[in-house]
C-alpha cells in the first residue's frame, strides 16, 4: 500500500488527559443519576442518595475537565452559542448542562433537605439526561474520521453505556453498605460482563482496524481494563455482598478498569490515526469493491 512518506492522512486528536477522564466521569454521572432514581423507585433510599451524590459530584467535575481541555477555556460558554444536532459535542454540552444542573440541584436540595417536589423533579430530569450523557461520548468519538472510532460506531455507545453503568454500580458499592448495594453490585457485574463481550465483538468485527486495541498503549490499557474490571467484578460478585472492604476494593477496581477502558479507546484512536494504513486500507478496499476509481 502506498502512502506519502508513511505520514498520516488524518490528524490525531488534540485532546489531552481531561477528555478520557471526562468520558469516565460523564458516564459515571449519567448512569448514577439513573441508578439513583431507580433506587428511589425501588425504595432503596441509601443507594439512591449515594448514587445521587456520586452523580452530582461527577457531573460537577465533568465540565471542569472539559473546560480545562479547551484551547480557549474562557470561551467555554460558546458551546451553548448554537443548538446543533449535527455536533455530538454540542448536543452533549446541552445534555451536560441539563444533567449537571439537575443533579447538582437535586444533590443540593437533598443536602439541605428542602423543596422535595423540586428535588424530585430535578432527580427525574437528571435521570432522563443520564442515559444520553453516558452514551453520547461514544457517538462523539465515533463521529470522527478516526478509523477505529468511526468503524466502531455501532458498538461504542453501547460500550460506553455499559462502562458507565459498571462504574456507577461500582462506585455505589464503594459507598453503600453491602446489604443495600445489591442492585449496584449486580449492575456492576452485569455491565462489566456486557462490556467485555461488546469490546470483544467490536474488535473482532473491526478486523485489521481493530488491531490497535492489541497494540501499544491502547493494548496495555485494554488489558489493564479487562484485568481491573474483571477482577473487581469477580470480587464484587464473590465477596461484595459480605465484606464492606471487598465491596470497596472491588468497586474501586471496576472504576479503575472503566477509566482504563476509556483511556484504551482514547489511545486507540491516536494509534489508528497515526498509521496511514488504517485510513487508506479500508478506503482502498471499499473503492476496489465498488470497482470505481478513487477520486
Amino acid at each position, binding site marked *: 500500500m502506498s502512502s506519502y512518506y508513511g505520514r498520516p492522512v488524518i490528524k490525531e486528536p488534540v485532546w489531552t488527559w481531561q477528555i478520557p477522564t471526562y468520558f469516565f466521569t460523564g458516564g459515571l454521572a449519567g448512569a448514577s443519576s439513573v441508578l439513583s432514581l431507580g433506587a428511589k423507585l425501588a425504595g432503596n433510599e441509601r443507594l439512591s442518595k449515594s448514587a445521587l451524590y456520586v452523580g452530582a459530584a461527577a457531573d460537577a467535575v465533568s465540565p471542569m475537565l472539559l473546560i480545562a481541555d479547551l484551547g480557549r477555556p*474562557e*470561551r467555554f*460558554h*460558546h458551546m*451553548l*452559542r*448554537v*443548538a*446543533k*444536532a*449535527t455536533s455530538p459535542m454540542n448536543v452533549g454540552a446541552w445534555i451536560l448542562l441539563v444533567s449537571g444542573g439537575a443533579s447538582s440541584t437535586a444533590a443540593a436540595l437533598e443536602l439541605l433537605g428542602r423543596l422535595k417536589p423540586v428535588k424530585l423533579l430535578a432527580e427525574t430530569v437528571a435521570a432522563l439526561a443520564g442515559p444520553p450523557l453516558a452514551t453520547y461520548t461514544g457517538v462523539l468519538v465515533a463521529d470522527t474520521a478516526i478509523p477505529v472510532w468511526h468503524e466502531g460506531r455501532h458498538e461504542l455507545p453501547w460500550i460506553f453505556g455499559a462502562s458507565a453503568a459498571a462504574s456507577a454500580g461500582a462506585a455505589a458499592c464503594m459507598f453503600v453498605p453491602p446489604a443495600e448495594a445489591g442492585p449496584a453490585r449486580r449492575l456492576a457485574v452485569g455491565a462489566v460482563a456486557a462490556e467485555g463481550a461488546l469490546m470483544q465483538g467490536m474488535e473482532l468485527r473491526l478486523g485489521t482496524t481493530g488491531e490497535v486495541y492489541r497494540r501499544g498503549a491502547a493494548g496495555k490499557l485494554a488489558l489493564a481494563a479487562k484485568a481491573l474490571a474483571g477482577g473487581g467484578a469477580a470480587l464484587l460478585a464473590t465477596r461484595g455482598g459480605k465484606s464492606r472492604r471487598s465491596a470497596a476494593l472491588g468497586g474501586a477496581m471496576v472504576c479503575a478498569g472503566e477509566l482504563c477502558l476509556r483511556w484504551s479507546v482514547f489511545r486507540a484512536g491516536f494509534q489508528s490515526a497515526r498509521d496511514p494504513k488504517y485510513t487508506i486500507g479500508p478506503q482502498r478496499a471499499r473503492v476496489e469493491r465498488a470497482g470505481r476509481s478513487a477520486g
Partner: protein
Amino acid sequence: MLLAPVRGRCNVPARQDARGTHAEPFCLERTREKGWVTLVDTIASWPVLRQLREGDPLGRGRAAQSPRSKALRPRIDEADHVVQSICPYCAVGCGQLVYVRDGEVMHIEGDPASPISRGRLCPKGQASKSYIQSPVRELKVKYRRPYGTVWEELDLETAMDMIADRVVETRARHWQDETEDGAPANRTLAIANLGGATLDNEENYLIKKLCVGLGIVQVENQARI
C-alpha cells in the same frame, strides 16, 4: 508620484486579531450601549434564536456567522495608498503592489497589470514584505575598529565622514599616475567596489561615475559570478 489612494470601505481595523492575540472574549454579540433594549437585542442576536429565525435550523450557515465575520473586509482595503513596484529578487522583473498604511508596508502582492508576471509571484517575491521587515534586519550603523572584538555604535554622519576620509587618504597614498612601463594609469588600485546587480540603474550609474572620478577601476558586480 503615488497612485490614487485605495480607501477602505469598512471599519474593521486592518491589523485586528491577525495573530489572534486579542480576540474578543464574547459569545452573545455585545454592544457598547447599555440598557434593556440592548439586552433584548443581545438575546435576539443569540445564534440559537437566529437559527430559527433565519432559516438555518442546523446552525451551520448564516445563523452561526459572527458580527466580526459579517463585517470582515480585506485589510488592503484599509491601505492609505498602494504603490506599483518591481520584485527585488531575480531578473524576471515581476510587478508588485505595495500596500501602505500609516507609513508602513502592510502587504505586498503581485501586480496583475504587468505583462511580465500577470500578477503572479514566486515564493521569494511573495515573501518580499517579510524580507523588508525581517526580524534580523539591521537599522543601525555598526562599526568595528581595527583589531576590535565587538561591534560598536556609530552615528551615520560620522561613519560617512570617516569613510570619505578613508577613501581620500587611501587614494592619496596609493595613487598610480603611471604603470611600471610608464603608461598612464590615473588610478588607485588600493580601493575596490563590489556590487550592483541588486541595485537600481541610477545607483549603478552614480557608483561607476564616482569611481571613474576617483580613479577606482576595480568596480565589479554579480555579473562576474
